[in-house]
């Protein structure tokens, strides 16, 4: 029997094209995130990074400690502009609270699980940390390392989660399904049944991106909108533009473009410009270049977000925990707003670089806008 399993698996590796995608199509999670999108946030008005959507509070009295504190952060890496903006937000928040923070130690995992595990280990060995923040490269891989850390000090996880309940809290916005729901429902509401949408995605197999597509696909299917293609662009503008040109050259009408991340949205739109075609309905993300183009060319568009202000929250949570204050947990759901035609103007800031994420919540942080590359 074992032999057969092995044979089957080896064959699966060799020939299977039917991906094991059902993992990213979890109806219960889809439903939960849809509800969270319309849940009213609790917490200080106008500061979404301190708010939370429902959920309980956890007691942290046992972690109470005198300051100032050393906060340690094991980062998955800074391999895309989203993470660059996020890390700036975190450093900004630490600067804002510098009276209470002795040092913020950041180790960069360079996107390698193995390195991040060693990084966490060396933070623990170094013995300087009062609290550990982890943004995992992948969920399963970092679980043992986080479990080991939990035994020594309070741990906060954000962005991606881990497969253990030991961290004090896990901070994240609504999630990938929520992103897909917001964007796809907008496109579906603007187009008649039978319209064509082209889905542009970054890379396959990344949980936080796959869930976005899975949610969008099920909404398109429900609304009777054809997904004429789902293409991976690797966040490369040249590739995005080429892919869209190829689809345009096929002669099929593209009524809308759906994107699982917006950093190449303007490149996709340029393909339509160069072909002399009208712009499609499009869902991008909260980057400045897309928002500016949207305003300038009167696009029919929406910018859902996976807000980078979530990088401020772990510092706030860390200090609260070391003060022994209650924090939302064991899951801390942050609001996940979308930019619409009505709110568009308020998110455009001409000083900021093209790929700056507008929902950074960083406008009130020290060093804005220069630290974020603005003028």
């Amino acid at each position, binding site marked *: 029997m074992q032999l057969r399993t092995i044979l089957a698996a080896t064959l699966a590796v060799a020939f299977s094209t039917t991906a094991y995608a059902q993992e990213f199509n979890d109806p219960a999670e889809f439903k939960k995130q849809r509800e969270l999108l319309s849940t009213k946030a609790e917490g200080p008005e106008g500061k979404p990074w301190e708010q939370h959507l429902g959920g309980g509070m956890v007691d942290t009295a046992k972690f109470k400690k005198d300051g100032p504190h050393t906060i340690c952060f094991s980062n998955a890496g800074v391999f895309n502009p989203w993470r660059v903006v996020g890390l700036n937000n975190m450093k900004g928040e630490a600067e804002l609270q510098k009276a209470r923070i002795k040092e913020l130690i950041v180790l960069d995992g360079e996107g390698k699980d193995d390195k991040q595990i060693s990084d966490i280990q060396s933070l623990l060995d170094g013995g300087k940390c009062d609290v550990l923040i982890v943004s995992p490269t992948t969920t399963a891989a970092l679980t043992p390392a986080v479990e080991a850390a939990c035994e020594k000090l309070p741990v906060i996880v954000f962005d991606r989660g881990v497969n253990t309940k030991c961290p004090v809290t896990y901070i994240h916005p609504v999630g990938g399904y929520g992103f897909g729901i917001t964007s796809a429902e907008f496109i579906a509401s603007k187009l008649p049944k039978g319209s064509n949408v082209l889905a542009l995605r970054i890379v396959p197999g990344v949980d936080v991106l796959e869930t976005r597509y899975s949610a969008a696909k099920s909404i398109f299917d429900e609304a009777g909108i054809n997904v004429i*293609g789902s293409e991976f662009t690797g966040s490369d503008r*040249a590739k995005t533009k080429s892919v869209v040109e190829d689809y345009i050259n096929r002669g099929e009408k593209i009524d809308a473009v759906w994107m699982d991340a917006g950093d190449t949205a303007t490149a996709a739109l340029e393909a339509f410009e160069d072909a002399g075609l009208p712009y499609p309905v499009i869902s991008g993300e909260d980057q400045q270049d897309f928002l500016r183009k949207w305003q300038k060319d009167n696009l029919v568009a929406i910018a859902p977000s996976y807000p980078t202000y979530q990088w401020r929250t772990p510092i706030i949570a860390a200090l609260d925990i070391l003060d022994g204050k209650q924090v939302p947990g064991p899951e801390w759901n942050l609001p996940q707003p979308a930019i619409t035609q009505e709110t568009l103007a308020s998110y455009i800031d001409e000083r900021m670089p093209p790929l700056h994420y507008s929902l950074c919540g960083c406008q009130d942080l020290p060093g804005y806008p220069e630290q974020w*590359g603005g003028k």
Partner: protein
Amino acid sequence: MTVLLNAVRPTRRRTAWLSVNLALVIFVVLYGVIAILQPNYLDAALFMNFLRRAAPLIILACGQLFVILSGGFDLSMGAVVTLVVLAASMLIGGDPDMTWTVIAILYAMGLAVGLANGLIVSFLKVPSIIATLGTMLLVNGLALAWSGGAPRGDLPDNFRNLGRLVLKDVPLVGSLPIAVVILVVVTLLAWWGLHATAYGKRLLAVGDNPRAAELAGVPVKPTRISAFVVSALSAVTAGILIGGFSGVSVNAGRGLELQAIAACVIGGAQLLGGRGTIVGALFGALSLFALFTLLNLLGLPQALRDSLQGLILIAAVGVTVLRYRRST
């Protein structure tokens, strides 16, 4: 030196001809399949657009060929492209009056990288694959550190036009992208430099057998350094076209160095030097790009495209090897 070259010449000319043939055949077959799937790819306008998109890879392949012929590799090309795109946007900052000055600065940067590669290989004796791997990390890191990890600034239209603008109603060809004009000029220059000058012969001699070339009086080190400079300058040109075609991005250029090497090999170039032609590199790059386009049109899952690309690479090089063996 003349003795050396004469001794090598007959077989080289013959095999070069064979390999050009093969890359050309592969390209025609692939483009033919594309045209069957999408007949409008036979329109002059769409073919010109295909060339516009393929131009950066062709230019990179031509530059890479110089290094390959000299017996080395240049893995830093992709990083130079990234640097060019990011630096252009930061230095120009959206001001059209700055474009030409900045382009000159970009070429100066390319010159510096090429010289650094060449000097490290020639004088520090670091194998080029490691030396250019090092400069790849270095240049890429510098570009990202300088830009803070995300693009800043903006590219004005007169810069973008180099890679984006298509002239309409041109006599004879109909539409003509500026990028294609640049492509033709660069390819002709590269062809002239490699196949019509004494320099080209020296380069081949160096790649074939540096010791023998040295004894025959070829200045081995300057020749080798110049190859890296040509390669870096071609990467700058490709970077300008890529930035123009699609705008600023931190991912511009990633992986292009391996594609350029693959294009040269498909075009019949022999790694570690001594054999290869510009026409081969040109059609090698066109074949590779036609393959990418075809895989896009077929709508296969992304993953299988990688596999297919691998298979075709093996097949193309494998056939070249067999033909070469037979011919000698």
